[in-house]
């Protein structure tokens, strides 16, 4: 076994009334990728914050490079070569790449004024970017970079402090499939250079492909460790949740009905020269796959009236409907569960109750005065129906976990009459348990005759939940797959703009 670089032993962290970490042991070897998995709330993030010096552990020892620490400060952690690539990237969008890499440690030119030496910083960042295969320069403004590129900046920052361990917390949750692959390559390269990576992810496929060893946390405890050759989805899931995951797919209760939503020749502002044709029948879940940036979210935004429709029309049950604003769309029963629930789905500082009734408040009012009793009843009904875990409907949405917040967004729409629902990445950043609840909910909505479009970048989800899958590529639909054609391979081929092989074979 390679030399141990870092060891945490007996780490505990107690907060008043809760034990966030309980006697956790963790070891990282030089040049090893350690996968760290567990449901939300298992303590992964808390553990990593102990390591990064943000949280002081209540008990335990951190051993790194032969030194023992009862706790670390952020500075010590950095000096020991521990770097954190945050899930929500902590970069300054108004500064360039070099300035971000050296933030807080700016290189100064000599002289009495001690001005910042931009040339020096850029010169130092250039080789790091080359090593990561980045195609932007140190003077690029971070504002102009994609999320994947920003991640590269964070990794460059880690390299610039000669990090020996890089912690990546859900690094791929906003990346496209190809960007994810690129990141996995970078991780392999880091490993080859003897840098260790602690890789936290909900996406087990990625863990499978990059981890040398996997540690599973549950309720603040280490519940198991899997060596490379013991890794399998089933084994990991069993440890994480302590039970086997049921097969995801539930077939519809009845055959899809005629009618539904037809998107005919729609042109969105993201791809003004492409037309989108797509139809989703009542009672079916249509998965909408594709690389990020393929125009899926733009389509949802256009159909929901957020962005202007530059052409084409939207028909529900063969009747054209006008959607000049979300208000119009909602009136037609077209609802959107947006990608970014905190920004577009919820007013975080308002209570659950007010969030649930935000879109339908006029229906619970007489002469524009809110009927509080009716409102409370609606909110309570939804909280019960969706099993939102909260002491009351009067607590602010901001205090809820991701899964429960998403349920509040759903509650808002389910308290009305949906005809067509768009779910944009409905389970992003949500734990396994809440995920399956949301899948079950989508299915029951479909069974009630709602036409459902589920935009998802999670292949497991697309293939496991949808009745049909439409794949988008550069602004238009490149193909639609029926269940018997479902495979990761087929979806990927369409997503990168290639035709399906069967169709190629059929061609003369």
């Amino acid at each position, binding site marked *: 076994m390679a030399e141990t670089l870092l060891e945490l032993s007996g780490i505990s962290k107690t*907060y008043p*009334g809760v*034990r966030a970490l309980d006697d956790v042991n963790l070891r990282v070897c030089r040049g090893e990728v350690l996968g760290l998995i567990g449901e939300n709330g298992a303590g992964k*993030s808390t553990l990593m914050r102990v390591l990064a010096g943000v949280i002081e552990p209540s008990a335990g020892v951190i051993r790194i490079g032969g030194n023992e620490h009862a706790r670390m400060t952020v500075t010590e952690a950095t000096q020991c070569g521990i770097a954190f690539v945050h899930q929500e990237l902590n970069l300054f969008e108004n500064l360039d790449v070099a300035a971000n890499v050296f933030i807080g440690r700016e290189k100064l030119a000599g002289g009495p004024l001690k001005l910042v030496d931009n040339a020096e910083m850029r010169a130092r960042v250039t080789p790091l970017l080359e090593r990561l295969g980045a195609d932007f320069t140190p003077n690029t403004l971070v504002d102009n970079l994609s999320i994947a590129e920003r991640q590269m900046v964070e990794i460059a920052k880690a390299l610039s402090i000669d990090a020996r361990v890089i912690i990546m917390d*859900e690094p791929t949750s906003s990346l496209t499939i190809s960007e994810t692959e690129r990141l996995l390559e970078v991780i392999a390269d880091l490993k080859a250079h003897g840098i260790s990576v602690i890789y936290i992810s909900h996406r087990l496929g990625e863990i499978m492909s990059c981890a040398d060893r996997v540690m599973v946390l549950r309720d603040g405890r280490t519940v198991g460790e899997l060596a490379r050759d013991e890794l399998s989805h089933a084994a990991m899931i069993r440890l994480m949740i302590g039970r086997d995951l049921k097969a995801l797919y539930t077939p519809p209760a009845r055959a899809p009905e005629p009618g539904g939503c037809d998107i005919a020749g729609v042109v969105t502002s993201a791809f003004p020269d492409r037309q989108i044709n797509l139809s989703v029948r009542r009672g079916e879940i249509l998965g909408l796959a594709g690389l990020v940036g393929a125009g899926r979210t733009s389509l949802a935004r256009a159909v929901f009236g957020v962005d202007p429709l530059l052409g084409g029309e939207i028909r529900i049950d063969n009747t054209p409907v006008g959607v000049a604003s979300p208000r119009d769309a909602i009136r037609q029963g077209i609802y959107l569960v947006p990608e970014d629930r905190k920004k577009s789905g919820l007013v975080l500082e308002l209570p659950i109750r007010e969030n649930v009734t*935000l*879109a339908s408040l006029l229906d619970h009012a007489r002469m524009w005065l809110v009927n509080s009793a009716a409102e409370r009843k609606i909110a309570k009904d939804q909280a019960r129906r969706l099993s939102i875990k909260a002491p009351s409907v009067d607590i602010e949405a901001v205090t809820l976990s991701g899964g429960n917040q998403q349920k509040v967004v759903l509650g808002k729409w389910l308290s009305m009459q949906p005809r067509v629902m768009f779910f944009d990445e409905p389970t992003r950043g949500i734990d396994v348990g809440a995920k399956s609840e949301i899948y079950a909910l989508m299915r029951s909505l479909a069974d009630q005759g709602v036409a459902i479009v589920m935009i998802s970048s999670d292949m497991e989800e697309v293939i496991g939940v949808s009745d049909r899958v439409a794949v988008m590529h550069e602004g238009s639909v490149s193909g639609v797959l029926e269940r018997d054609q479902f495979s990761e391979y087929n979806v990927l081929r369409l997503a990168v703009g290639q035709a399906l092989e069967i169709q190629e074979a059929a061609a003369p």
Partner: protein
Amino acid sequence: MMKKELGLFLLLAVISAITGAINPAFLSFVNLLNMANLIGLFGVFALGEGLVIITGGIDLSLGSMFALLGVVFIDLLTTYQVPWPFALLLVLMGGLALGGIQGFLITRLKMQPFIVTLCGLLIYRGAARYYTSDSTRGFGYGDEASTLSNIASGNIGGIPNTFIFLIILALILGVLLHRSVYGRWLYAVGKNEEAARFSGINTNLVIATAYVISGGLAGVSTVMFVFYTNSVSPSSFGNFYELYAIAAAVLGGCSLRGGEGSILGIVLGTALLQVLQNLVNILGIPNSLNFAVMGTVILIGVLADQQLQARRRRKAALAGLARTAPKKDSTILQSATALPTRTGDQA
């Protein structure tokens, strides 16, 4: 929510008691009625300002609006001999229109409220001065609008009509803000405009309406001030009054980030400001320190409020933590210890 108003009320009571103990003249009937009149005068447009601040905006143009609408109003009554109901109507419509234009520029043309209303401040003031060639307008010895004058500056059983009007207005706006669908939308838009739009709320209309209401109340205030001073000198009439309104709203619990504040709070904030001004006189503090006293109290008030809120939030977080333990994680832990990092799964 109510704690803030209660705190403000206690502060008001304590300051009044201390001042009254030092100089009993403070609590004399005449002085109290005088203060009530001023609270009425300054409260009306502070309420409008408060609505605008709840949308996350600001209205800097109010004082200049008073000058412009004021000279027009006096001119209508004296020079043009327009019957007072029409003059009143025209001034109100003028206020609504100016608010509407500002609202349009802010919502439709996506300009920043600060800039739009700052330009309003400059433009209206300039227009008022140009219109009158910088000369003071006042009522002659005639009784052009004695009825309206009696309504605006009279009293019922000694209580100034301005104060009574403020109370009625506060009740109406209180229902609008705290009980009506519009009020709910206003808070939602102030907190998160995008989520409000994604919920089908016509956010532009909601915001613009707040500016229209503010403009309309500025029209009302203009009339009340004109009869309070009986003349309008266009270069100084209403100077800095928008700042009184902003100060009252902020003192009353409105956050300049939007989405927070209450009608009761704004009224109490206005009252506190007037009490402070009065106290400076009554206690023989040099009048030149007037603004400094006001500034200090606002600063301390807002600071204390923030500290108390942060403490309450920490307590609530810890309580929530104990309640939902042990499955609940980092959101609560984070807010409890104000950690710099966040996980995306949680708020």
